[in-house]
């Protein structure tokens, strides 16, 4: 039941994210909020986690460098911690496309969440 719910949620979020090819960048902020809702923390299903991670990275990569700071400011404390978790998850699989934007996001998230948010990525027992 829970898996079905998760997959449904991912499909819904994909619906908001997929149409976001430039120049349609109007609701990137909404996409970020949507994709950080209901993270697959409690599930043990790797597929769900991987799809969620892919979605988040897709949203993060669609942002322009100048918009990243504003986007991070719009998040609350818990969302910044969650964003840090996804950033480090993204670091685990570095590739030519993702390192650059991930590092930019990391810099902005760090100034918002401080080293405490990184400590919470390391100490979290259940993670994305």
């Amino acid at each position, binding site marked *: 039941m829970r898996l079905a719910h998760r997959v449904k949620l991912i499909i819904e979020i994909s619906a908001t994210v997929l149409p976001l090819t430039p120049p349609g960048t109007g609701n990137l902020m909404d996409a970020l909020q949507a994709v950080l809702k209901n993270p697959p923390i409690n599930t043990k299903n790797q597929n769900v986690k991987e799809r969620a991670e892919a979605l988040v990275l897709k949203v993060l990569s669609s942002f322009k460098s100048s918009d990243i700071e504003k986007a991070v400011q719009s998040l609350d*404390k818990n969302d910044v*911690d969650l964003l840090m978790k996804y950033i480090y998850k993204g670091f685990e699989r570095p590739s030519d496309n993702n390192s650059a934007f991930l590092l930019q996001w990391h810099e902005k998230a760090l100034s918002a969440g401080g*080293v*405490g948010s990184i*400590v*919470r990525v390391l*100490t979290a*027992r259940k993670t994305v």
Partner: protein
Amino acid sequence: MSLYSFGLEPLSCHAWNKDKTQIAVSPNSNAVDIYQKKGKEWNRIHVLMEHSGRITGIDWAPESNRIVTCASDRNAYVWTLKDGVWKPTLVLVRINRAATCVKWSPLENKFALGSGARLISVCYFEKENDWWLSKHIKKAIRSTVLTLDWHPNNILLAAGSADLHCRVFSAYIKDIEEKPGPTPWGAKMPFGEVLLEHKDCGGWVHDVSFSPSGDSLAWVSHNSSISVADANQGKEVTHLTTDHLPLMSVLHVNETEIVAAGHDCCPYQYSYKSPGSLEFVKKLDIPKQSSKISMSAMQHFQNLDKRATTEDDDSELGTLHQNSITQLRLVEGDRGNVEKFSSVGLDGAMVLWDFKQ
């Protein structure tokens, strides 16, 4: 604020005597050094050598003038001053792992010892046989007990442990004390009863502290957060995540203000008023602005040659402590109104801080 350096070795723990003229510290070894204050200097007057393992906890009972020490050699000793010499008495704590922390109870008729054996040993003196006995609290504890704090009623004991839980136990020993009255934490308090168990504090619970009235309990855990459980409000827990490095020690300075310090080498003040309102107030260490002495051209090029940089020497931290703070202790004032507190750290320094409302 004043800093005194006890050498290069990290100070694992410290304790003050009643009039705060003597301090017992352990320089990360199996010895306890007792220093006496003389003007601005501290002179070593005693060295307590009995343990064979690294000392992990020291507590000095102010009224009865006894020191209890515990170490990684699975032992605890109670020291009494006889004719100007400290004499140790072994306490049978019956643990098969290292002891991690020790605290005298408020009335000093017993003390609690946390250990890696997943239990708390509550020890009291039995007059008939003239020795210290211990009773174990094992219920619910799944890993090393890292920190302990006594409730002002001499019965309740808070424990933070490495199984990520924070608990409040009853340490009521019927042989030596009266049955306690009900408190906001609970009414029935047989020995070993769990009155609060907060699961999953996010990380190892490094330190716990009861408020002066005992009605609320604060703890700091390794996920850089500080939390408070309020007994008067149905034991509701309020968390606050910080953006500093994890805090290692927490101390109530009065009923609402809490001071905590840790790996950021600097004490922070937090305020708790009611469930949901735990806030950061301020940093207590104002780094002194190092005066930028204008460098001569010669120094400029010397720097460039020696260190490949023309910037100022940045190798010192801006805070008084140059390494993590491991423990905070009350120095002046009483539990309800702390005016001065001390901190020791891995840099071997002890700093006295003034607290003003």
